[in-house]
């Protein structure tokens, strides 16, 4: 999907919407769903993932010419696991409360497919600078989905953002009745499902209008690149 001839700006910007890791490549959804109950956890999680992603991309890109293909997976996992341990220790040292809330999900960054996916498909074939840009782009793409879903869930589920009350709750004499379902797991599936629906429809519409102006037949891309 990414060719070496792509200008650096595209390397950075493409993953944010057009090649978004979560909605279009459907990678790394585990943590995207699990930590979006409140905005604060989503924020910390996306910052951690972005940091690990950039670190591992640069490291693996630097190592790419010295690693034999047969052992590359174990090397990649080791690099990622080491970085995750660092992040985990930093969180435990400075943000003890949040690291409790995130529980096992910081550790699970290791198995986050976005990171291994970028290492496999991009960093193994590109120099460190481009890999860092690609990692930053993917990190930002991951971040805005997490923040969006986290924001909606916290706002509708408890009428607050980052713990600050925004909508006056009924129990405090306001008008807003919090939607308890938003705090439960299924709502994350629904929100991401609807989000994917919107983004896919938008990209289909774009493809259609482009093919109409070019007077070419409709691209047969109605199916999704499911993995």
């Amino acid at each position, binding site marked *: 999907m990414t060719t070496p001839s792509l200008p650096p700006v595209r390397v950075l910007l493409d993953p944010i919407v057009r090649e978004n890791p979560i909605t279009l490549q459907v990678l790394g959804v585990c943590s995207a769903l*699990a930590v979006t109950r409140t905005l604060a956890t989503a924020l910390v999680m996306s910052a951690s993932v972005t940091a690990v992603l950039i670190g591992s991309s640069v490291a693996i890109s630097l190592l790419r010419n010295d690693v034999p293909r047969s052992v590359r997976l174990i090397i990649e996992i080791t690099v990622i696991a080491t970085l995750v341990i660092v992040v985990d220790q930093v969180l435990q040292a400075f943000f003890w409360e949040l690291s409790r809330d995130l529980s*096992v999900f910081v550790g699970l960054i290791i198995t986050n497919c976005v990171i291994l996916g970028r290492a496999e498909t991009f960093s193994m074939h590109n120099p460190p600078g481009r890999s860092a840009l690609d990692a930053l782009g993917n990190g930002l793409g991951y971040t805005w989905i997490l923040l969006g879903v986290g924001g909606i869930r916290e706002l509708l589920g408890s009428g607050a953002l980052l713990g600050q009350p925004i909508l006056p709750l009924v129990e405090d004499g306001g008008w807003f009745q919090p939607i308890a379902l938003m705090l439960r797991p*299924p709502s994350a599936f629904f929100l991401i*499902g609807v989000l*994917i629906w919107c983004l*896919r429809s938008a990209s*289909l519409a774009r493809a259609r209008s482009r093919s109409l102006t070019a007077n070419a037949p409709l691209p047969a891309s109605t199916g*999704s690149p*499911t993995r």
Partner: protein
Amino acid sequence: MSETLDLFVQAALTENLALAFFLGMCMFLAVSKTVEMAFGFGVAVFTIQTISVPLNQLIGHFLLQPGAWAWLGLPDADLSFLRLIAFVGVIAAFVQILEMVLDRYFPALSAAFGVYLPLVTVNCAILGGSLFMAERQYSFAESFVYGAGSGFGWAVAICLLAAIRERLEYSDSPEGLRGMGLTFLVVGIVSLAFLGFVGIELP
């Protein structure tokens, strides 16, 4: 006995790794296109989960927890920060060994779910199970029950989803919703159904 059953049911249904904790979602969505594939993958996850969680419990208990090295004269050594990398290593090594053993002694079985085994290594449900086990400080017996229960619950969930997706194949859904979008909504509904298990009290 009833405690064991409780833990099994809790791990399999109320705290279903896939539907309540969203673990192993990538594979969950990718491999659930047909029931046959889902079943093979489910069995692979169940097997590895049942063995790797107790295995990691032993490693955590005897090698990593604070004071584990007291007999060597190192009572202050706390290696628990190595938990992540140790668990990943154990799982990867174990999957590799299992693959070789199956290949050697049970070629039919290996052909049936051999392709899924390497994928299991990067499945967050497996690592997640071990991490939950460490966080909740299960004993060896408990971790065995927890591993079996959570693996079983994951397998059931993926088979359910695959069955639904097979039937949805010919549905007339909006263009942008086809594929992943629809799958997410369906998983949401299945997860909603599993919420119903919360609060079940076994006699």
